[in-house]
């Protein structure tokens, strides 16, 4: 009885952890990383234009 209960509690814990992790990644981490990646891409093009003259479209 007690062993089953701890099992259930553990399951609940893991479920919450997984949901939290998914939420964090999807709502916070990946959007931020994407914005940084796009920003970095833009920065590279800009610097290439400033120092290299011509640039890819």
């Amino acid at each position, binding site marked *: 009885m007690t062993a089953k209960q701890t099992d259930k509690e553990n399951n609940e814990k893991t479920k919450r952890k997984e949901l*939290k992790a998914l939420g964090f990644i999807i709502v916070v981490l990946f959007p931020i990383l994407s914005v940084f990646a796009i920003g970095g891409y833009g920065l590279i093009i800009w610097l290439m234009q400033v120092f290299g003259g011509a*640039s890819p479209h």
Partner: protein
Amino acid sequence: MKWLINLWQTLNKPAKYLTLGSISLTAFVMGIIFWGGFNTALQATNTEEFCISCHSMESKPYQELQKTVHWSNHSGVRATCPDCHVPHSWGRKIARKMEASSDVWGWFFQTVNTSEKFESKRLEMATREWGRFDRDDSLACKNCHNYDSMKWEDMSKLAQKQMKRAAEKDQSCVDCHKGIAHTLPDMGTARAPELIAEVGTGPSKFNDGQTYFTALTKPLFFSAKGDVEAGTLNVATKVNVLESKGSRVKVAIKGWRKKIGAGRVIYFDFGINMLTAQLSKEAVKTEGVIKGFEEKEDDMTGLKWQRVETELWTDAEYLITEQQPLWDYARDTFRTSCSVCHTQPDEAHFDANTWPGMFQGMIAFVNMDQDTQALVQKYLQQHSSTFVKKEH
């Protein structure tokens, strides 16, 4: 730190309770929301309303635009801020957005929030915009304007000639068409920042008896301390430093003047209209300032010339030891500014007395501050057929 390790532990093994379906569905939906949101934000920052939501953009560039053909015209097409200032292709647009981060900086620290601050920075800001148009051959203009769609027969003969030449080279539009949407910066009063960056402000200590050259047009004074101006010393003029006192140096100026009127202008040599210095009326009248020597008559004009020498004071700055950097800068400026609209003539194509008229006739078409103008004119005279013998 603990939560990070926990997070990693959760992420590092297969999900136990969340199904693959729910994970991929949420990821897919969030991807759409993110991308949609990103592009909406990109779009929103690419509108006129967004640009002029800053006071400095609304009060100056936006008001100026309303006086131009890009605001209203007989075909009813209007160019808004992003049409010209933000490239349309995605990659370049993102690059421009990054570049615009300095605008956010300026907004935050209020670098152009008043009319005075804006005007003092106008040249710098315009130069930056021209730089981008230069880099991409005026791509922003060419999103609407196209050399191939131009109706040549409706143009004047001169316009046709110039435009066809530009079309051949697919020339950048702002090479000639500057100041068409906003007021031009005042180029006439700025003191040649690019020239000084190139040649420097000169040494901090001067050797008596050594020869120096002026890097700008400089005021001349009667004494080492006084404020009374005795005239101006032209750019790229050779002077001999006689002595230093405080922040001034005494220089010896040699040349020739015409024996007409007060004879206030000192020229480079007999019969050559190349400016060395212009003295004030007081300076000419004051006994002993100008020392006159032998006189000669110019057969071409019938004018009498007199060799003169004068010793006056000037600020101990913008006097450089070599003349060549000045000529190098002038040559580059002459080549780039003049070849924009036509093939520039060879320096030795005209003589020293013909160049000023030629040059002054063209100067309205280019943006050149007064010091640079004077320097380029002198460069042309100094390298004209008068001094450089060349077969034509």
